[in-house]
């Protein structure tokens, strides 16, 4: 009998070594708290809930402590585990192009087509990427890592994941979480910079109403856009190809079912998988490093630089424009491609100064140009460094 009780005791003691309680470290607790903060921000503050809920919950999943020596095949970094298989789409970079397919199928480029000079604002805001690249180099990262970190400034989660999976796979978790976190924090980061860099008179500029765009123009745009951008930067093909393909599905008018699938069930499925696996990839043992802290700091800086360069570029551009054709610099922030949040910020800040001046439709132009610009920038970085 005593032997049996000893056996039971030993069995339970052995079981204890497998539990999360026995394997928990301070790192796990910290990451679980960060995950809870993400969920709180998503639920209570409605900051990008579609992203922060999956990422936040993914953080909880990824940071449940377990006996890593036991070969349970449950961790995201254990080959063959379910999470590892799902993470394959992030690691090999095929989730981001599918997300871009959906984005293309839900994006209306009319604002951009009606006023194509807004494309240049989307280009200017990409300076955030290269500003952060320079600072990252100064902080001791090598060029490939610096480029992967810099892309956070493109404010485009899928692009950041795609590029970091190619250039710095070991930093991908931190880069992805940083990119999505700052995208969610766009309403906090951008307005003070916009107010700081614009004068009262500039904020009141009323822009010309955009002209109506014909169906033919909308169909031509994705075709010409693809040919032009991808001939220039073929390395951006996976992202740009899918973006423009999705848009053609939408605008052609004859593939409604395909467009609806791309912008509905498909993008939702991929968003869930991407969010949960990116969140789970923040396993404390891999994620809690000084490099991650530096990446977060650089991510914030890149957003600030991108916003500032967009706003300043509009002010500079206005010097060359006729009086009745000026651009309100409050739409400069929307050159960063956090669609449609940064455009919404232009609208909200614009209304603070003139409740009858609606900037949303104008801001959507640079906003979608930012998507193209950041994908082009990612292609350039890939082309230059690989």
């Amino acid at each position, binding site marked *: 009998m005593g032997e049996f009780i000893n056996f039971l005791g030993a069995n339970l003691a052995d079981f204890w070594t497998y539990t999360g309680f026995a394997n928990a470290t301070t790192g796990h607790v910290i990451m679980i708290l960060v995950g809870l903060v993400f969920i709180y921000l998503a639920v209570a503050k409605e900051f990008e809930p579609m992203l922060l809920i999956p990422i936040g919950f993914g953080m909880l999943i990824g940071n449940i402590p377990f006996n890593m020596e036991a070969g349970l095949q449950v961790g995201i970094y254990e080959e063959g585990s379910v999470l590892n298989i799902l993470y394959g789409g992030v690691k090999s970079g095929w989730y981001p192009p599918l997300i871009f397919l959906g984005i293309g199928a839900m994006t209306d480029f009319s604002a951009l*087509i009606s006023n194509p000079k807004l494309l240049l604002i989307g280009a200017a805001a990409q300076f955030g990427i*290269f500003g952060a690249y*320079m600072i990252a180099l100064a902080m001791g990262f090598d*060029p490939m890592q610096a*480029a992967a970190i810099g892309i956070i400034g493109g404010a485009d989660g899928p692009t950041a994941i795609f590029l970091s999976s190619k250039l710095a796979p070991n930093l991908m978790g931190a880069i992805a979480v940083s990119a999505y976190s700052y995208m969610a924090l766009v309403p906090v980061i951008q307005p003070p910079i916009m107010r700081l860099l614009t004068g009262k008179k500039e904020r009141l500029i009323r822009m010309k109403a955009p002209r109506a765009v*014909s169906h033919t123009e909308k169909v031509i745009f994705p075709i010409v856009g693809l040919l032009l951008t991808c001939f220039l930067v073929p390395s951006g093909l996976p992202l740009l190809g899918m973006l423009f393909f999705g848009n053609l599905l939408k605008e052609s008018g004859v593939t409604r079912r395909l467009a609806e699938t791309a912008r509905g069930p498909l993008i939702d499925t991929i968003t869930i998988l991407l969010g949960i696996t990116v969140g789970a990839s923040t396993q404390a043992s891999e994620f809690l490093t000084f490099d991650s802290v530096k990446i977060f700091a650089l991510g914030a800086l890149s957003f600030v630089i991108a916003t500032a360069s967009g706003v300043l570029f509009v002010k500079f551009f206005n010097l060359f424009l006729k009086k009745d054709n000026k651009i309100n610099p409050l739409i400069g922030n929307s050159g960063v491609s956090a669609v449609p949040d940064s455009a919404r910020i232009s609208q909200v800040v614009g209304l603070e100064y003139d409740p009858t001046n609606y900037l949303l439709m104008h801001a959507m132009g640079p906003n979608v140009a930012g998507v193209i610009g950041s994908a*082009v*920038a990612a292609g350039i970085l890939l082309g*230059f*460094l690989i």
Partner: protein
Amino acid sequence: MSVFLALTAVSCASGDGESKLLINEVLVKNVANFQDDYGQHSGWIEIFNKSYGSANIAGCYLKVSSQPGDTSSYFIPKGDVLTVIKPRQHTLFWADGMPNRGTFHINCVLDTINPNWIGLYDSGKKLLDSVTVPAGVLSADLSWARINDGSKEWEIKGTSDSKYVTPSTNNQTLDKNVKMDKFEEHDKNGFGMAISAMAVVFSGLVLLYILFKFIGKVSIALSKRKAMKVKGVTCEKEAKEKKLGEAQGEVIAAISMALHELQNGDHDYEETVLTITRVKRSYSPWSSKIYSLRETPNRR
């Protein structure tokens, strides 16, 4: 179907007509170099898959000739998984004249005195690549190899520390990222990268801008012409006054109103899905009830 079969049969050749399989390095006289699985030193021929996709070499022919009219031909057997060469990888064939030792042992030996011509043919016997290994220049354990994997220029390897014999691996060991090293050397602060990359981003989007500026002008002109035709206006001046072809003020007012309501939460809740689809009832015997229902059997 026949085209498909032809395409699948020629697995060794790439689609663009240029071969993706190349003879990459040859060692004729092996005294103390790489050993095969039997512990023998034999001459070897290295094949390189220069593409970024796997290539199956099974069914191809390896031909060797050192005398005119005396060519031995080795058919690379099918059914061995090891004949699939991974992207940018190599495989080695032992020229020991012992094909019974396995797939990678060919049926001839390389001539150590005369030049050796080696040809790789696809299953359709189309020449994929060939090389003539010169005679008299290769002493024992030196190889005749492309300078880099797949490059056009050949050289003798094994003569110095920087030119080493590399069976089954890269002809130049890739121990650094050349592009990254260049950036680290010439662009330490990243300024060059920022300028050049921003120049490319801007030029791409400026091109798009110019093109759509032009397309926009054409489109406006066309819609104006269309509107003039519909309204029966022939005079350009009159069309301009009437703002034909431009979005009407009412449209912009409606958009602004909708935005205002959304912003202030004034919009009342209602069923947001409105579907107006024309009901099509085209007749087809396939959709006919008469044909899809069985008649009730009559009981007599």
